[in-house]
């Protein structure tokens, strides 16, 4: 069986925070304690939506040492394929669900003299767990959090009331922006930066850090990609000896699973590298969307990450 170990849970709270974001609380069905985890970890939530099973990663935002429950906050994406809509519209208190054991691809570097967190929108969720972890260890941290508006500023009140000196909030609709250059130049040696937010923000922070000569290893980022819909395509799986159709609304990985092929995966968001698959033959074009393969590998036509990437063309044969 692929993916991290599963845990059967019950939804014990559904809390709308604002127009877009709702928080979900999970407790174990068997009444036992959940595993502890490290700040920055995510869980993969299984959603049975009619005939379709979706597996989406969400950052854990609760105290990593609290074993009674996990919480996630989910932003509704009206344009997406429906994972967040399913959670918002179809999940209620008392429902039984399956989630995965925590997996951390966005871990704190515990050597850091200071942890500088930069969050955009719903990207605040891993920071919430990291802050809990650091507070317990009396760690040195500072948060810069950009939101669209006061109304959409999830957890702003909580953060500013509990940590008035360490939290800085910026509202887009008030034309407030993080003064990144100034922020970076004021940091002590040994500072590590953690950025979680939209792609533009991640690229901006990474670019500015590189420009200012920060070590690559000191900049940590996480962006989960949701698979995007696209034109249907056909794939031949050489090892399984199957020809499968990838529908408009499903990913290549999901199509393989639907066809009974146990393909490896972990994050399902183009970040971890687990589902990397060798291409045996193709005629057409890849639509690579992952963060795992580098540009050279993307253009080589030798590998594909089926969790988020697609294909347009005549023939695609995979080593799976």
């Amino acid at each position, binding site marked *: 069986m692929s993916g*991290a*170990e599963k845990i059967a849970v019950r939804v014990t709270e559904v809390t709308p925070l604002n127009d877009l974001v709702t928080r979900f609380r999970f407790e174990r069905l068997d009444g036992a304690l959940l*595993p*502890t*985890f*490290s700040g*920055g*970890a995510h869980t993969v939530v299984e959603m049975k939506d009619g005939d379709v099973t979706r597996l989406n990663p969400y950052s854990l935002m609760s105290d*990593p*040492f609290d074993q009674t429950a996990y919480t996630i906050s989910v932003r509704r994406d009206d344009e997406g394929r429906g994972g967040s809509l399913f959670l918002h519209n179809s999940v209620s208190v008392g429902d039984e669900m399956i989630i995965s*054991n*925590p*997996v*951390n691809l966005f*871990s704190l*570097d*515990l*050597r850091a003299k200071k942890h500088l967190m930069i969050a955009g929108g719903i990207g605040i969720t891993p920071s919430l767990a990291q802050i809990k*972890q650091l507070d*317990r*260890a009396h760690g040195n941290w500072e948060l810069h959090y950009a939101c669209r508006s006061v109304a959409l500023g999830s957890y702003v009140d909580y953060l500013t009331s509990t940590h008035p000196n360490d939290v800085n909030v910026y509202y887009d609709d008030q034309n407030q922006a993080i003064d990144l250059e100034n922020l970076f130049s004021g940091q002590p040696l040994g500072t590590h930066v953690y950025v979680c937010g939209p792609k533009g923000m991640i690229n901006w922070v990474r670019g500015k850090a590189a420009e200012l000569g920060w070590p690559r*290893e000191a900049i940590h980022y996480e962006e989960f990609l949701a698979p995007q819909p696209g034109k249907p395509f056909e794939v031949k799986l050489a090892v399984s000896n199957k020809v499968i159709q990838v529908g408009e609304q499903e990913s290549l990985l999901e199509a393989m699973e639907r066809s009974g092929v146990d393909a490896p995966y*972990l994050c399902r968001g183009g970040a*971890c*590298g*687990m589902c990397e698959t060798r291409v045996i033959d193709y005629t057409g074009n890849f639509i690579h969307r992952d963060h795992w393969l580098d540009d050279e590998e993307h253009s080589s036509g030798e590998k594909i990450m089926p969790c988020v990437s697609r294909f347009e063309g005549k023939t695609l044969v995979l080593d799976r």
Partner: protein
Amino acid sequence: MTLQFNDETFREDYSFHNSERAIKRFPFPFDKDSYMYAVNMEQHRGGPSDSIYEKRFDVDEHYVSEMRDRAMVLADDPLRCQSLPHMTLAGWDLLELIMVSKSEDYPDLFELHRDGDKWHWVNKPLGIDDHFTFMDETTLPYGPMEYITRQTQGDFCVLDQRDDNLWMDAGTITTQADWSLDFDIGMNFFEWHAPVPLAHEKGIFVRALKFLLNIQQSAPARRLNWTMTVNPLLDTSPENYHKWGIQKTSLTPENIGAKQHLRVELQTFFRLPRSNALVFPIRCYLCAFQDLMTVPKWGRRLHRVIRDLPEELATYKGFIDNRPMMLDYLSKFDDGLPTSNGIWPEIDSEPPLKSD
């Protein structure tokens, strides 16, 4: 089955010995009649009853004596146990993992009582009964990693995970096959494996690292590794090479069966939850050639493996000079009959040694 702990030594008079039960459960590492490196990982989720795979941390008849030997090594050389400052959280993770596992797997030997952060740990074989506050180092006589690894057989490498690599940033290493924590501390996965021959060319380490980086909580893994040791020495460290290296020249055709030991490491890998570090316990099992030869399948197979092993590996594992004498001894236990696949002794189904 109640465990009887041996009173034995791993130095000077070498009174170490394996009972018949210990021989039968010895982790013979060769699943076929030849050996080459492979990323031979499998999940670490139990195994046959009374095998060394059954429990998360195997406790056997050598437990008390091994812990006494570790205390002596640490008294002579405190640098065998080191933990860089950022690894303390991983040390608590390890302490929790071992205490929870042992108290669940061996309730007659170990007890753990938890009331929030107030913990009570009872280790009956070692006569320890301690109350302490979890995550408060001042309430333990040692740091958390040192405290628990002084009570657990096997070496422990605690590896930090960052920059898509693993870093040897903490450990307790007193039963090692000729490598040094003090030398390797702070190194990454490729740096500390640099001396290993052939495996780099085969891309073994790139694949092994990828596997290890993806080990997840609640899904530990394991593999076996092996080498050869003359006399039942746990501490074959570079620091003490001047003491044990010379013993390799003491083998004679008369004493080789008793003195030459196959040294097998059960290597396990656990993701640590709070720190996201990886712990890599390396548990050493020793068995004298003459005890191994009581299992006909192992006698046949060990001869064939040692005979056909590439020269680089026999050199790296430190027995190239003694190989001819080993083969003279082992060949007497190889009658040419076929062997069954797998590592298990199969005493009931394999034919006894054919005598000429």
